[in-house]
Structures are given as C-alpha cells and as structure tokens.
C-alpha cells in the first residue's frame, strides 16, 4: 500500500502539472469570453464538483456512522465536510473572479452565488455544532444527523432556487444550448482537471482521516 501510495502521489503531482500547463498554455482562449477568462473553467468546475462530491461523501459517512457506530466513519464525515467547505470557498472565489471579468462585478447575488453562500453557511453551522458538543460519541451522532439534514437541502439550493430566479450562470447540468457546449480539446482538459482534482481530494481525505485516527488514539492513551 505504501509503495503504491507513493507512486500514486507522484503520478498525481505530474498529472496536475500537466493539467495546469494545458489549461494555461495548450488550449486557445475560447471565443465569446472576454480575454483569457474562459480558462478559469478548468479550475472552477472541478472545485465545484469536488465540493459536491465531498458533501456527498460526508453525508454517506454520516449515514454509515449512524448505522455502524464506528468512530472512523465520524472522522470521514468531518474530514470530508472540511474538504467540501474548502473547495466550496475555492469555487466561490474563482466564480467571483470570472463574474468580475465577464459581467463587471465580483458579487451580485446571482442565484448560484446565493445558493453557494447558503451551502457555506450550512457547513459552517455543522462545525459550530461539532464544537458545541464535548462528548465524542454524542458529537458524532448529532453532527451525523445534521449532516444528513443539510444534504437534503442541497438539491433545493443547486437546482430549484436557480430555476425560480433568472441566473447568468451557464447551465452545465442541462446543457440544452448548443452554443454553450465545449469543443473536444476543452472537454479533454476539463475532464483531466476533474480527474486530477478528484484524485487530489482523495489524497487529502486519506491524510485527514489518518490525522484524525492518530488524534483519537492519543486521546484514548491519555484516558
């Protein structure tokens, strides 16, 4: 495992370098965007994707904790929620930069911006709850319940709220507009970037859960 893990880590490193090079140097700037702003899609979409994935993992790990009651699932849920929060912030920042270049303002309460703000609030509240309960088992149970509740609201933020209001955000999920579709070179780099970011978050997740396990063991040694 260790040698494979080491090789994978270096592979990931090379992969991300290639993705960054391709995103900035290889791909020509897309038409219909101001300046070089289209390149941000190779980072904005993967961070948003990884954030969604991390929240999904957090929800599944919370469910597993409630079912099996093993501490490792609680670590998984907490680490994953932390990663999701980090990537959601990155997606917000890259999105705001793109909005500034394309539409002239960093922040305009576009439905997507509103929904990501609520998402950030929800997971910030998750950590507020974690810090408010001292007993580890009770903390794990209560935060698992809250995490599942939070995940139920996510589809409403992502799909329903932007539908009710007019949004400038390009519609990625239901791509009905043929002008919005990507050409094949862009698609390849985007998919490579998605894979790279997913790999990166898997690696971060495994490091995070290992740290939590060590902390847990240390606490038990002290007791």
């Amino acid at each position, binding site marked *: 495992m260790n040698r494979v893990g080491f090789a994978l880590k270096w592979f990931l490193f090379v992969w991300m370098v290639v993705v960054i090079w391709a995103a900035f140097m290889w791909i020509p700037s897309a038409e219909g965007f101001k300046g070089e702003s289209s390149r941000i899609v190779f980072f904005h979409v993967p961070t948003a994707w990884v954030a969604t994935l991390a929240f999904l993992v957090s929800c599944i790990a919370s469910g597993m904790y409630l079912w099996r009651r093993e501490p490792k699932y609680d670590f998984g849920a907490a680490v994953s929620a932390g990663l999701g929060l980090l990537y959601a912030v990155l997606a917000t920042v890259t999105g705001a930069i793109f909005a500034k270049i394309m539409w002239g303002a960093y922040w305009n309460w576009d439905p997507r911006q509103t929904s990501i703000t609520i998402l950030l609030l929800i997971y910030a509240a998750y950590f507020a709850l974690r810090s408010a309960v001292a007993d580890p088992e009770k903390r794990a149970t209560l935060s698992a319940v809250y995490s599942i509740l939070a995940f139920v609201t996510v589809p409403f933020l992502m799909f329903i709220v932007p539908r*009710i209001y007019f949004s400038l955000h390009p519609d990625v999920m239901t791509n009905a507009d043929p002008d919005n579709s990507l050409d094949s070179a862009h698609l390849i780099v985007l998919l490579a970037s998605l894979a790279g970011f997913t790999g990166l978050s898997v690696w971060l997740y495994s490091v995070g859960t290992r740290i939590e396990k060590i902390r847990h063991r240390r606490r038990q040694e002290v007791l």
Partner: protein
Amino acid sequence: MSRWLAEALAVAAKDLRAEFRTRVALNSLALFALTTLAAVSYTIGPYRLAAEDRPFLLSVLLWIVIFFAALAGLDRSFVKEEESHTAPLLRLAAAPTVVWAGKLLYNLVLIFVLMAMLAPLFCVLMGFEIAMPWRFVVVLAVGGYGLAVITTIVAAIIAQAMTRGALFSVLSLPLLLPLLIIVIEGTRAVAMGDLASFSESLRAMITMAGAMTIVSAFLFPIVWRD
C-alpha cells in the same frame, strides 16, 4: 395507527397544557412578532413604498418577521424537557416517533397561532393587498409546516448540546434559508396574482417540507435515544 396518532396527540396536548400554564414560548413568539411589526409599520407604513416594489418588499418583511419570531420561541419544545429533567420519563412513556410527531404538532399549533394573529395584522397595517387570498392561506400553511418540521428536529439536536440558545439560530437558519426564499417567492406570486409562479413555488415548498418530514422522522429516534 390510530393508537400512534392518539399518543402523539397526547404528547402535543401535554405540551400545550404546560405551555398555557406559563405561556413562555407563546409570549416570546408574540412579543417578538409584534415588536418587529411595530418597528416595520412605524418606519414604512402603508404609503412609503412605490407600488411596483410593494409585493416584493412586503412579502420579504412578512416572512422575516415570522421566521425570526419562530426562532425566538420554538427552541423551547425540547430544551424545556431537558431543563426540567422530564426527558427520561418521556423516553420511557412514549415511542420516539410519537414524541417527534407530538412535538411537531405542538410547534405547528404555535406557528399557526402566530400566523393567524400576525398575517392579518401585517396586511392591515402595511396595506398589503393580496390578489389571491385563499392561495395566500395555502402558502402560509405549507410554509409554516416546513418551518415547524425543520425547527422541531433542530430543537431536538440542540437540546443535547451546550450553548443552546445561540446554537438554535445557527443551525436552523441555513436549513431554513432555501425554504424562506421559496415562500417569499410564493407570497409575492399570490400578492400579484401570478399563478404560474405560485404553482412553481408551491411545488418546491411541498417537496422540501415533504423531504424534511421523512428525513427527520427517520433521524429523530437516533437523536432522541441519547
């Protein structure tokens, strides 16, 4: 099933009886709502807003008053059981889903009492004209139900934690925000007589309240079991 319902009603009735002895929750709900309404009505009143802005701004204000008043009073439902140490007895006396349903009914009654008092008063004081009054009642009922479902499960969670008062708002508001946005849109739609938009937001409201009902019915026994 009928036995389950009877037990749930008994839990709700017990809470309502205890509530009417002290009226702590009802007083804080009502006073919060009336104070905010007085402030809003004094500053804005029926003439201050431009006609085209009215449906938007008044529906936002109405729901802000309702939601924040709810946050001021609805955390009591479980916290009072923990504070008076009656929770263990309730655990012995009734099944977890019965307790959940009872508390939900109790919160629902409180919210509907609040709304029955506040909504007409708001419409009169602010000159809020509703094009489709019966559909407005539907929006209030479904929105109030969603509010009750979410605050019930969050109240159950925070009753187990420390620093309860602050945590209730912190945990409730993010979960309530999508619902708040949708009910505001629905209220604007009924005020303007916009049937398509009303139907869309009503469907979103029902989906959200339904999903939350099912999820909290499943999760509540885990929180309650301790």
